[in-house]
């Protein structure tokens, strides 16, 4: 199966609205329609494994027919990144500065932003380096602010690393001019520039996947605060030129729920739902009913899958 537009889905929203349930149900639907599907959780507070009742980790685990899942382990990814560089360093640097490099790497490992960057690096591995392994990838993200940042960072990083590439090329150009003056025409090697270019290309490819292949599904509930946050997120995603797909409105009190309490909640929700629909100006939504029990394991998921099936379209 060839990769097509909308092969990549991000599921975002306020904490506790049902992102993991939605993402898992959507992944199950993709797998059931014969797509090799990867479900990725980037929320540091992983709950995908709990939902599926299967222990998951940083490497893809098979959880069903043509279905794999991974809980990104940012700590491990950051450790591995730094240790790879340390090995490189011990091979390359003189004894004189080795302790210095070690100190620098230890500080970098603990720096703020390192874990966030490690998640983006891991996403680049799954979405760019291993692009041929899966037909569909569903990414379950951390709450709204993190999702927006995760989606925007590759673009910012690409600009930054691109700037470094140009600066380095300028220096290399002068170096070449200098060598030419003394009749040395051998093209100068520069591993630093080579590595920077690879980084820049990888970030460009990740950015392209997010902009060309990805659809972001926001999950919300019919409550005022969640709705305000959702509408803000729609605007921000559009400002970043990312594709916003069908919105999921979760935990809607079903019409057949009895009792005065349910009736009162239903009435309240109807006001919020009308407000949301009006302010979305025709953007597609799908409603998922509040269930009388927790969603746990593949069987409970069936009830939800029926509703998120429409998301397959985008």
């Amino acid at each position, binding site marked *: 199966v060839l990769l097509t537009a909308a092969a990549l889905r991000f599921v975002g929203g306020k904490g506790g609205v049902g992102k993991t349930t939605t993402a898992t149900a959507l992944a199950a639907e993709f797998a059931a329609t014969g797509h090799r599907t990867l479900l990725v959780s980037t929320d540091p507070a992983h709950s995908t494994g709990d939902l599926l009742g299967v222990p998951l980790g940083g490497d893809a685990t098979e959880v069903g027919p043509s279905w794999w899942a991974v809980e990104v382990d940012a700590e491990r990814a*950051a450790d591995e*990144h*730094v240790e*790879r*560089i340390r090995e*490189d*360093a011990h*091979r*390359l*640097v*003189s004894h*004189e*500065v080795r302790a*210095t*490099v070690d*100190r*620098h*790497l230890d*500080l*970098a490992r603990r*720096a703020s*932003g*390192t874990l966030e*960057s*490690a998640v983006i*690096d891991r996403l680049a591995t799954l979405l760019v380096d291993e692009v041929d392994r899966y037909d569909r990838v569903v990414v379950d993200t951390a709450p709204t*602010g993190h999702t*927006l*940042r995760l989606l*925007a*960072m590759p673009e*910012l*990083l690409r*600009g*930054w*690393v691109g*700037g*470094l590439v140009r*600066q*380095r090329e*300028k*220096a290399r150009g*002068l*170096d070449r*001019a*200098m060598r030419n*003056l003394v009749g040395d025409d051998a093209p100068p090697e520069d*591993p*630093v520039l080579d*590595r*920077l270019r690879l*980084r820049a290309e990888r*970030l460009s490819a990740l950015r392209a996947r997010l902009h060309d292949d990805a659809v972001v599904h926001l999950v919300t509930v019919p409550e005022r605060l969640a709705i305000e946050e959702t509408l803000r997120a729609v605007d*921000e995603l559009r*400002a*970043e030129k990312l594709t916003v797909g069908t919105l999921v409105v979760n935990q809607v009190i079903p019409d057949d729920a009895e009792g005065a309490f349910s009736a009162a909640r239903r009435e309240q929700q109807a006001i919020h739902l009308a407000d949301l629909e009006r302010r979305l100006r025709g953007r597609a939504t799908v409603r998922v009913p509040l269930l009388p029990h927790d969603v746990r394991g593949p069987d409970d998921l069936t009830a939800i899958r029926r509703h998120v099936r429409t998301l397959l379209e985008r």
Partner: protein
Amino acid sequence: VSADRGPGGIGHRLGAAWRAARTGFRAVADYHDAVTLARWRGGLRRAHRDEEDRFLAVLLLAAYGVDDPAAFETLELTPRLIEDFHRWHQREGLDRFPDAGVCC
């Protein structure tokens, strides 16, 4: 993302950091540019060195207390650049670099 683009946001700081790093070395570069006219080859060598210094400066922003959003992406360059940096701070008359995390 408006929070990233506004004042104090990551996009804003990114731009400010680039400008700060470049301005810091512009004065030195301007001086060297004058010399370049008089002694072409020597000047060329110095211009080259300045460009490499600017490159190092941007990579080691953290040492100046400026956030480097791409630190993770560029960390792998450290082993190949630390000796350059060591030479740079000694050339500039600093036997030891004030930030112990970056060099000696």
